[in-house]
């Protein structure tokens, strides 16, 4: 069996088709449907990589991500985050101060601020993010790239 990948997303369809795609490319896929279950599965299954959705019940992807980075056991565990902000993240360098672009999109603004802060702390890199709607093959390619020895 290949390397173990945990898919954490509250959308059952996403967990299902990503698992199919990963297995198709030789990975072992397991699923979790919220942040709390995600942490339990990480501890129980010890995956090689985690695919993490951001907006999830009980514990958001960011909270879980921060928890992993603070935990000695998982601070180097590779994470791919599924968001709608990868493009926004790329914008950080070019127009980080231009908040007029989407004046009412406060959630998006907050998400961007969170990512910006995490990026300044060296916690996240733009290549960790994949925007939804996702192409399963693209996610698998990213996983393969991060897991190659």
């Amino acid at each position, binding site marked *: 069996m290949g390397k173990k990948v945990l898919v954490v997303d*509250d*959308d059952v*369809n*996403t967990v*299902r*088709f*990503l698992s*199919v*795609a990963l297995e*198709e490319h030789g990975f072992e896929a397991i699923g979790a449907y919220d942040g*709390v279950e995600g942490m339990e599965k990480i501890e129980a299954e010890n995956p090689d990589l985690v695919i993490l959705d951001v*907006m999830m*019940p*009980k*514990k958001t992807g960011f909270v879980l991500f921060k928890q992993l980075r603070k935990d000695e056991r998982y601070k180097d565990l590779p994470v791919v985050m599924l968001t*709608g902000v990868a493009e926004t993240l790329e914008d950080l360098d070019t127009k980080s101060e231009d908040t*007029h*672009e*989407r*004046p*009412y*999109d*406060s*959630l*998006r603004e*907050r998400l961007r601020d969170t990512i910006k802060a995490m990026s300044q702390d060296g916690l996240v890199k733009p290549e960790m993010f994949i*925007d*939804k*709607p*996702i*192409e*399963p*093959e693209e996610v698998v390619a990213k996983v393969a790239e991060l897991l190659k020895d």
Partner: protein
Amino acid sequence: MKLWLAFIVVSLAFLVILDIILGIEGKSADIILRNPIAVFIAIILSATAAWLVWKGLIKQPFRRFSDNMKRFTEDGSDSRRDQYQKGEYGKLAASYKEMSAELDFLRSELKRSKDYLDGILESTSDLIITVSPDDKIISINAGAEEALGYQRQEVIGKPIQMLFVDPRDREKALRKMGPTDNIANYNTRFLTKDGQIKHVLNTISRVRDHSGNILFTIGISKDITEEKRLQIELIQSQRYAAIGQVFTGIQHSMKNMLNACKGGAYMVRLGLKKDDREMFTEGWEIVQEGISRLTDMSMAMLKYVREWKPKFEQVQIGDILSEIDRVIKKTAENKGIEFKLNLPPDLLPLTCDARMVHSVVMDIVSNAMDACTWKEYPKGESAKVEVGAYTSHDNQRMIIEIHDNGCGMTDDVKQNIFTPFFSTKSKSGTGLGLAITSRMIESHNGKIDVDSEPKEGTTFRIVLPRDATT
């Protein structure tokens, strides 16, 4: 000099008269016959003396006095005011002196006051224009010169209509004045000398004399061209921002549906490639789910923009809430949520569109249950959703409350929940649920507000008039 001469003449006349009187004594019968020449001389001398006295003491000082007054009224100067003599004339002169000093003071006060008003008129950037009753410009101030690009001599005497982009505007403003003789902040446009348009707020007043005849009209206009430009720019940018927000919202809602379509299509492809019918079918079902949610969203968009006309009927709110209780209880139980309905025994009836009120409460209850599933409850606490209804003290309003002890909301989420496509639930919903709900409540002249604390819970409060048809 003349006074001395008059004195000599009067003395001579006195001597002649004395001589006559002395001559009369004892010979009274023939006095006129005895010296008629002396009498004649005495009369002439007396007349001359009287003339000299009148000329020297009265006529000339009065002429001087009148010349001085004339000069004073002409240019305000009276260099000899302090040289007038004593006596009756002196008193008159003193009184005149006092009066002219008073006039001097009033004149300087008047000038000061005029300078002050001129200063205001000329230093304000507002356009101040006075117009005669036959619509001719009487005066314009520096503010008007500056704003319109005209020198005052170019427009004085010309028809006021020349300054308007639409000459009928002035007439319209005057018509609107009515009996008050005043119109404030009339929005109009002036045309500058070089053909530019100036947006102004015009305040016009009629000035009348004591008999009520119109003397002139005075117009004070504020140039608001720049404000107008900024306002248009702001509206434009708000419009773009609103469109941007809607597009972002639609994209946000659509991406999860497209995600299902893309992922499902991948499985369909893989199923076909591997001749795996089960995978093909599963993939196809995921695609269909995506399509069905896209359809829901497009229907919700139509629902949101349509005109909401409630079909009012008198209902018992208890019936509507009990129906919701019946439908939702099982689902709630399955999710581990305790659902409770609190109804006082003697609730007054409500005139409303029962279907809309049902839909509104159902939508909020379903959100409340979502909020519960999103929360990680500490030990000893369990998910709870409560629905209740009561009437206001004056029995005029019906209040429906939906409370949950779920994940709650931060302030910026709370401020946006009724905004179309604002959604914190990326996987379900259309982003239009509460936006539609608030439109339905508006159609009942009701209102909805929300109290919420993150991690503590949320209470929605719907206030409906008990009879929205009155």
